């Protein structure tokens, strides 16, 4: 028997001995029934205690009656803890690692849900909106419906699922998977022997079928791992956001108070690729306190934006001759993530926050965009200036971006010489029933330079008289936010038409374009991460033959000089 066991035995026996040594004491004559009753009471209390503990947290043991006092009046400062297993709120005795595996609040109260303990969190954000506008309806032809882009319609903008994992302190993995305007995608492929049927010819039929609604997109918006090397320095690697301007890195829908993204970052865009623009790369980032403010920096090397193509197929079933149209559509896109994109781009951002709520930043991007099948090299250079100023309840936030596309005309000449012919068409003598057409399309938009700005002015307030209404009841800090956004973008030498034959450019029609938009909106935020917003938009074409956004082209259309829109939306984060 060890010394500890012996001491424990003595401690157990002594109270009984001492109780019997005091005749006439409060428990001098204890009967078996009384002991049994006490035992039953103890058992019942233990059960109750276990139930209560389970309600709080299965892993959190009962608090010891902790009240430890140490004092050293006049002596050196001294702080003593009861023991190294003292519970920290949210952690319990079982968790000896002070900052490991803790969770504030029971699961149902957490923001974001934990899986695999608290190491992995699932969250997300998204937005939906309704838009009505007066974009001109084109002339009708016979029984055909009018050509029109904008309807009084709901728009499922996006739903983004986020996954945030912390394998260990100083290590982090984060990803965003985006479902944009996506209803469903269904792909079927099959190969069947073909020796009967209408054709009555032997062979194999290969069938590929893609089903889904138009305009949908499924994308990996971010997926990176981060290693915190030191307090002001972290290494990030993976699918990252080039930090040009402030919108691309703050693109979560629930951050913004208007239901549409700016022309500079989305509608134009002035950014080389519309936001959320992502590339595969690696870099360093950090945050350094300077005086009362701090300096925030990001620097990445990456594969970078490329001139990429998609193959568009159009089939027209019509009277006389059916049409099969193939269009290699060339546009700027994020570089491929399959290891074939050479690392030829850098992007950086340096932001200084001199005081709370205010920030100014300078950022940039430079990288080669011409693909390997072209002989000419050309680069994109973007420079952006952005910032935010806060004064009491007023906020001003904005961004200016300038992007240069280098030797655009040389690139077009090279495309012409490599592709030889921009279009090819069969004649009715060759195929009586089927017309085929191949035509290159340039969806860039191809310009020499693009630049533009947006600036938001907003005021946050909440009238107390709304506290008792459904708008304010049960919400901690609701807000109403009137907002004005001014924005304008310019496209220099926008290529309207580009055709070539025999490796030479036969037609190159360019023009300067300019568009401005003024938005007046009101946002109601019952909580910080949910926004119900409504806005009136006035879009005006200042230069050019069509609006930059939306690019509404159609047979017999009279291009809009301006249009108005009412947009209502909800954005949320969780």
């Amino acid at each position: 028997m060890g010394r500890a066991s012996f001491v424990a035995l003595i401690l157990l026996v002594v109270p009984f001995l001492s109780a019997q040594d005091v005749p006439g004491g409060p428990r001098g004559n204890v009967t078996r029934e009384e002991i049994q009753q006490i035992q039953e009471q103890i058992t019942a209390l233990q059960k109750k205690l276990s139930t209560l503990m389970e309600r709080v947290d299965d892993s959190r043991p009962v608090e010891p009656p902790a009240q430890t006092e140490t004092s050293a009046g006049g002596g050196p400062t001294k702080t003593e803890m009861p023991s190294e297993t003292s519970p920290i709120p949210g952690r319990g005795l079982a968790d000896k690692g002070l900052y490991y595996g803790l969770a504030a609040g029971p699961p149902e109260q957490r923001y974001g849900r934990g899986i695999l303990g608290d190491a992995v969190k699932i969250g997300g954000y998204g937005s939906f909106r309704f838009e009505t506008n007066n974009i001109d309806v084109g002339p009708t032809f016979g029984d055909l419906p009018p050509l029109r882009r904008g309807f009084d319609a709901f728009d499922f903008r996006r739903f983004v699922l986020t996954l945030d994992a912390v394998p260990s302190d100083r290590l982090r993995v984060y990803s965003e998977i985006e479902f944009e305007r996506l209803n469903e995608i269904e792909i079927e492929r099959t190969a069947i022997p073909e020796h009967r049927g209408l054709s009555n010819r032997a062979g194999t039929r290969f069938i590929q079928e893609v089903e889904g609604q138009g305009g949908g997109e499924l994308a990996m918006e971010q997926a990176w791992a981060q290693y915190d090397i030191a307090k002001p320095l972290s290494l990030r690697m993976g699918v990252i956001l080039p930090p040009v301007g402030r919108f691309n890195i703050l693109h979560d829908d629930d951050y913004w108070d208007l239901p549409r993204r700016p022309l500079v970052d989305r509608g134009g865009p002035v950014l080389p690729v519309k936001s959320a623009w992502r590339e595969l790369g690696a870099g360093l980032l950090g945050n350094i306190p300077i005086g009362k403010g701090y300096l925030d920096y990001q620097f990445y090397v990456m594969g970078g934006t490329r001139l990429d193509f998609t193959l568009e197929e159009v089939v027209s079933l019509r009277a006389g001759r059916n049409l099969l149209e193939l269009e290699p559509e060339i546009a700027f896109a994020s570089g491929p993530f399959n290891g074939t994109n050479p690392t030829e781009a850098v992007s950086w951002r340096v932001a200084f926050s001199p005081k709370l709520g205010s920030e100014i930043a300078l950022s940039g991007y430079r990288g080669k965009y011409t693909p390997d099948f072209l002989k000419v090299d050309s680069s994109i250079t973007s420079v952006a200036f952005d910032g935010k100023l806060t004064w009491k309840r007023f906020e001003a936030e904005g961004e200016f971006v300038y992007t240069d596309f280098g030797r655009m005309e040389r690139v077009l000449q090279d495309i012409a010489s490599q592709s030889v012919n921009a279009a090819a068409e069969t004649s009715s003598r060759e195929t009586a029933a089927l017309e085929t057409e191949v035509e290159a399309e340039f969806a860039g938009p191809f310009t020499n330079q693009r630049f533009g700005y947006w600036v938001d002015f907003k005021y946050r307030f909440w009238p107390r008289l709304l506290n008792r209404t459904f708008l304010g009841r049960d919400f901690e800090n609701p807000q109403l936010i009137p907002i004005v956004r001014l924005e304008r973008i310019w496209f220099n030498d926008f290529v309207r038409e580009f055709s070539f034959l025999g490796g030479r450019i036969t037609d190159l029609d360019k023009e300067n374009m300019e568009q401005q938009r003024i938005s007046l909106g009101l946002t109601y935020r019952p909580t910080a991460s949910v926004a119900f917003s409504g806005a009136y938009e006035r879009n005006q074409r200042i230069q050019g033959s069509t609006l930059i956004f939306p690019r509404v082209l159609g047979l017999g259309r009279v291009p809009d000089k301006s249009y108005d829109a009412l947009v209502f939306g909800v954005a949320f984060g969780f």
Partner: protein
Amino acid sequence: MFAETVLQKSGSPIRAGLLLALCLLSSAFASGQGGGAQVYLTVEQAPRAVFPEADSVERKDITVTPAMAQKLKQLVAPAKPTIWEPSYISFVARKQQKIIGYAVICEEIGRHRPITFIVAVTPEGTVRDAAIMAYRESQGDEVRHKSFLAQFAGKALKNPIMPHQDIQNISGATLSVRALARGVRKALAVIQAAYLQPGE
């Protein structure tokens, strides 16, 4: 800009990138700030950070009874922090045997993960100082800066202590700011209920 200068001199974006990365790495290691990037104060260090002049700091763990939880909810209203903890670690700071303040360690969820912080309160019930002990979110750690935390000084339960009202928000850290604001209100309520008006 330095980056642009490097870019011009090096001629290649990759060379420029590597050069800049080398510069940043060198400066980081030269500063000697290695180690964890998320844990800023331990429980032992926290009371010293908010009461640097104290002679002694006495730790007291406050057990939360159902009645106290109810009282805390009333005190923090209209804020809605999580009041779920079975106990709070608190400290009583003294200088020359006179109480100069109280402090309590609290946690609140930022976006996905809890932020651990200590709030020091004067005997009059106003915030004296606050410090982040651990930050775990992927973005928004600007809330740990002194310039942000300093705005809580002097706040009492009679103040809103709400973002966009009397607390300045930080872009990209909105939910962390909200968590800190809620948490400071909770800390004030705990000190009020445990020390300043324990019988009420």
